[in-house]
């Protein structure tokens, strides 16, 4: 690893110098209200014509102090709040939080609960990737894929709705297991969806994968080398597209992932096109996981016996899961009371967005959009 030596040459993101402008240079404020910054991200771009000379992400417009709120809520009370961070992948957030608290308690969810959690989390991963695919394509100017991907996402949301009554911020899990049993046709719905999905993904790929313009717009854009990615703490599909085969579901399995066969798709170039391919491949893998899991959901209870009042013994724990966007970690410190002393969320988008500065150097304005899209950020999570 030579990241340290390179670090100096990185040009670590400083604020964009707006005082001294070169010839033909302008400062362009992208956001916080802009169609393709996926929420309220603001990017200050220093442009030479259409080329980006320097960039700075300005975040915090969606800061709600989630970590502070946690210190004034009991452990179960805080669970719904985590859904509001990465609001397009609420189930994954909930999974990470519940498992972290369980770890803190020294408890563990029963097998049935863990399998159901796995199914829902993987469906959520597919849903999150579908949403990403649609919006990313829309950013690059393909108007149609978003409607197809939304159609499939709708199916997933319907399953969530049937399961727990909510579609977006689901609060599907409870600390210690699940609150709800699966509904009657759960397996049938999930299976039917997964069977249809393969052909649908092929459909998206026909629209995009070999489309000359799509390849031209994404290949070689926003390149992030593996060393840079690791040094920047980038995780998830972005890291895997840079050639690092690392997935927490394999590396440090949680929920029921160790029971299932699946592959961790990687690519080598670390550009936007590879990130696209990795996510598409991930959707296919998630589909396989769901199919394996739904085939045999073990019988048994869905809640562990953890008592009504949760008072974890003093101490601390860091637990992380592979969210749709990367490593989603919870660092929870307990002081033995019913309220967490400190909850730190390690949001994947926050760290991935940090790499934007690196990716955007020398890119064009149009590439900026493609790069933001390919990182797949959710500002609710970045700002918390």
């Amino acid at each position: 690893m030579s990241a340290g030596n390179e670090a100096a040459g990185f040009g670590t993101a400083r604020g964009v110098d707006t005082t001294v402008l070169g010839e033909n240079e302008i400062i362009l404020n992208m956001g916080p209200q802009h169609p393709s910054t996926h929420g309220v991200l603001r990017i200050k771009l220093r442009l030479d014509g259409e080329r980006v000379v320097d960039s700075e992400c300005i975040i915090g417009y969606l800061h709600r102090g989630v970590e502070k709120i946690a210190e004034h809520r009991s452990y179960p009370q805080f669970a719904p709040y985590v859904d509001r961070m990465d609001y397009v992948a609420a189930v994954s957030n909930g999974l990470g939080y519940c498992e972290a608290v369980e770890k803190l308690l020294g408890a563990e969810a029963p097998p049935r609960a863990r399998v159901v959690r796995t199914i829902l989390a993987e469906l959520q991963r597919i849903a999150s990737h579908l949403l990403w695919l649609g919006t990313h394509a829309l950013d690059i100017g393909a108007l149609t894929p978003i409607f197809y991907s939304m159609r499939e996402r709708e199916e997933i949301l319907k399953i969530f709705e049937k399961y727990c009554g909510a579609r977006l911020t689901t609060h599907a899990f409870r600390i210690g297991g699940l609150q709800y049993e699966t509904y009657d046709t759960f397996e049938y719905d999930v299976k039917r969806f997964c069977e249809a999905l393969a052909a649908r993904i092929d459909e998206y790929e026909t629209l995009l994968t070999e489309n000359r313009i799509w390849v031209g717009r994404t290949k070689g854009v926003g390149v992030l080398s593996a060393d840079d990615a690791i040094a920047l703490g980038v995780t998830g599909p972005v890291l895997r597209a840079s050639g690092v085969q690392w997935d927490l579901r394999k590396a440090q399995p949680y929920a029921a992932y160790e029971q299932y066969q699946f592959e961790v798709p990687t690519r080598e170039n670390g550009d936007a096109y590879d990130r696209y391919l990795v996510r598409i491949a991930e959707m296919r893998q998630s589909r396989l996981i769901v199919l394996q899991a739904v085939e045999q959901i073990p019988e048994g209870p869905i809640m562990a016996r953890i008592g009504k009042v949760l008072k974890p013994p003093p101490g601390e724990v860091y637990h992380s899961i592979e969210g749709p966007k990367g490593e989603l970690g919870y660092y929870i410190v307990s002081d033995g009371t019913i309220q967490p002393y400190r909850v730190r969320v390690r949001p994947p988008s926050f760290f991935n967005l940090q790499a934007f500065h690196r990716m955007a150097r020398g890119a064009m304005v149009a590439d900026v959009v493609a790069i933001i899209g390919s990182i797949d950020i959710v500002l609710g999570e970045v700002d918390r």
Partner: protein
Amino acid sequence: MVKRGGNDEDPPEKRPGDESVPDASSGASNVLQFPTSLKKVEPEAAAEAAKPARRVPGSAPAREAPPAPAPFDNELVQRLRARFGDAIGEVTIDRKQVIVIVDASHVREIALACRDDEKFEMLVDVTAVDWPRRERRFDIVWNLYSLTKNERLRLKAHVTVGATVPSVTSVWVGANWPERECFDLFGIVFEGHPDLRRILLPEEWQGHPLRKDYDILKQDTEWVREHLGIESGQ
């Protein structure tokens, strides 16, 4: 060490640097080819067999002694102690996760050693915890991860209010934003940081919200009035 249900069986977290079990991946020099589960599960074949027995369907595992921090020692810790001496403080293991207390002033060298020699290539997170009653009030926490060894390590330093902590941005560029966040929300100053400004809150905001003595009554109503044009509800 506390024995619990199967899910926490993942090997990496419980033995940072534990050489007693030959780790299949420790010999791998190429970081990029991270060994996947097949290799990792291998040394655990025996433990795997015991798993179903412990995972009794229908009942949660009987709660044994509550998890609590315990002192910990292994070769990694010894190597670190040998190299940095007093800068390495107490080493504990809490819920199978190793915590190394370090001296804040030496953290950059320790981080560099961890990255280059101990192969903790990735800085997962930098954060802080506020303990207002302690003299050295803040815990700064660095969460490290080794792709090569699939292990985690947590460095922790106690610092007083106003003390500066060396920035690790020269070791991991990715420390930039999380350190800014710590500065923003806790008011901890990282020395050597290229661009230490507020990140989540507005530039002119007064106070550091994640400190324990900060609450909604203390929020910067002045700023809210001036910039948002509304009276704060409190």
